């Protein structure tokens, strides 16, 4: 699937964000993310990567500039957005099935429809067998799968992910990367993905945005023209290695600039 080249999902117009008095986090960011794109945001720590996601979701307002999501203000667009946090953020007193259904429950979707939706999602992410387990009985990877299922339960058009796999071991992370692409191919959402891992960003994205720190600003935008569907074998191809090398180089530039 290729990005729809005309319809913008997210637009930033000279967006600036500072916290309190004077601590400038992001400076005049211009950004256009199209429907169907998978955009990763990378950059050294302190460049405001996570703040970008908070601005898109309306969890924090910009200090200056305008943000449009689906042509609406971020707050009004919330129904179309799901957020996946760095830790799985599962409510420990709820079973997997109750956690995955949380979004639908809060949005007051009828129990019957909710249960059907949750059951099918648990199958989709491979958690059918642990539906009635509590989060503390799950491995890190399974928790993250539950978190992904919860995010997808509300049928989002836009998925925001804040370093979701940072705490996982490399093998689990690779597996989940492949699954995220599989789910996206089926469900066709747009994604903005914050990560520390250049290889992960290259593997997942149609485009990588490299931020420079102090204050956060766009340093470079790298298109990743690898064909979909992408599978595990892609990681062994020389083109992939080359793109990872190039992106790492640009990231180092951003840091030393």
């Amino acid at each position, binding site marked *: 699937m290729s990005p729809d080249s005309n319809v913008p999902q997210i637009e930033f117009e000279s967006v600036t964000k500072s916290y309190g008095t004077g601590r400038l986090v992001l400076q005049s960011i211009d950004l256009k993310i199209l429907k169907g794109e998978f955009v990763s945001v990378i950059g050294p720590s302190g460049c405001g990567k996570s703040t970008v996601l908070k601005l898109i*979701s309306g*969890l924090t307002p910009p200090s200056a500039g305008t943000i449009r999501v689906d042509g609406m203000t971020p707050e009004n667009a*919330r129904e179309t*957005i799901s957020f996946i946090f760095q830790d799985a953020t599962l*409510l420990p*007193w709820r079973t997997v099935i109750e956690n995955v259904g949380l979004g639908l429950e*809060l*949005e007051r979707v009828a129990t019957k429809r909710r249960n059907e939706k949750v059951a099918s999602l648990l199958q989709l992410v491979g958690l059918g067998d642990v539906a009635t387990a509590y989060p503390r009985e799950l491995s890190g990877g399974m928790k993250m799968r539950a978190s992904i299922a919860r995010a997808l339960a509300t049928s989002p058009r836009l998925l925001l992910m804040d370093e979701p796999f940072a705490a996982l071991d490399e093998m689990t992370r690779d597996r989940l990367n492949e699954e995220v692409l599989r789910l996206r191919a089926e469900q066709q959402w747009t994604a903005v993905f914050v990560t520390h891992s250049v290889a992960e960003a290259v593997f997942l994205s149609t485009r990588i945005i490299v931020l420079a720190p102090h204050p956060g600003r766009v340093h470079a935008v790298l298109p990743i023209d690898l064909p979909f569907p992408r599978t595990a074998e892609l990681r062994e191809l020389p083109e992939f290695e080359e793109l990872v090398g190039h992106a790492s180089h640009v990231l180092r530039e951003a840091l030393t600039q």
Partner: protein
Amino acid sequence: MKQRLTTVANALAVFVALLIVWQLVLWIFRVPRYMLPSPWAVATAFVRRFPSLLMSTAITAQESLGGLLASIIVGVLIALIFAQSRWVRKMLYPYTILLQTVPIIAITPLIINWVGPGSAAVTLIALIISLAPVVANTTQGLISVDENFVHLFLMHNASPAQRLFKLRLPHAVPSLFVGIRIASGLAVIGAITGELFAGSSQVGVGGLGYSIFYASSQMQTDYLFALVLAATVLGFGFFFIVMFLEWYFLHKWHESARVPETE
């Protein structure tokens, strides 16, 4: 299982050793009976006066339980108010510390003055003395919700009521139980202390504190010991019931409530 048996055996051994030392002290130093009765005399008093002992314990148990339940209800309500804003907490928190520091003996005459002597006064005293830990721990539980959870709820446009009942309150339950565990001990102590002064609205019938006061004035030291024993058992009983409830409600999901595995 074997480990648990050893623990019980150890505790029993210490108990028997204590009884022997107690009896030896009586023989060697020739302590008069009104100062320190023999273990046998205490046991006899315990059995002979068992009905009145049971009655006193029941009265104290009822007052302690009433005070504890009231302090849980009132404490959670206050905590909900405290959880609304930092400003409210700053303004009102000093008064909960006041609750904790006011000498209960000093306000007992006032309470008797207002509600009269008897169970109502004692229950009120148990409530006052056990309130602070419930308020402090529940407030902490309500306000210490991880920011990401709040964001998650906001992303789904959760109403304030949904955030309270589906996020903050369940999150506060483990802390609430910490508060209740402390409060349960205090409620029993509060009830017995209260009974020393406000124990009875009817001569001769009262809880453990009242009977302790009465037995001491009559120099019935053997019965006094039996009453102290009953008070200790009552305190233990409260503690274990709270521990059990805590385990029952939390063991499925909360780490602290899990029984350590012995394999």
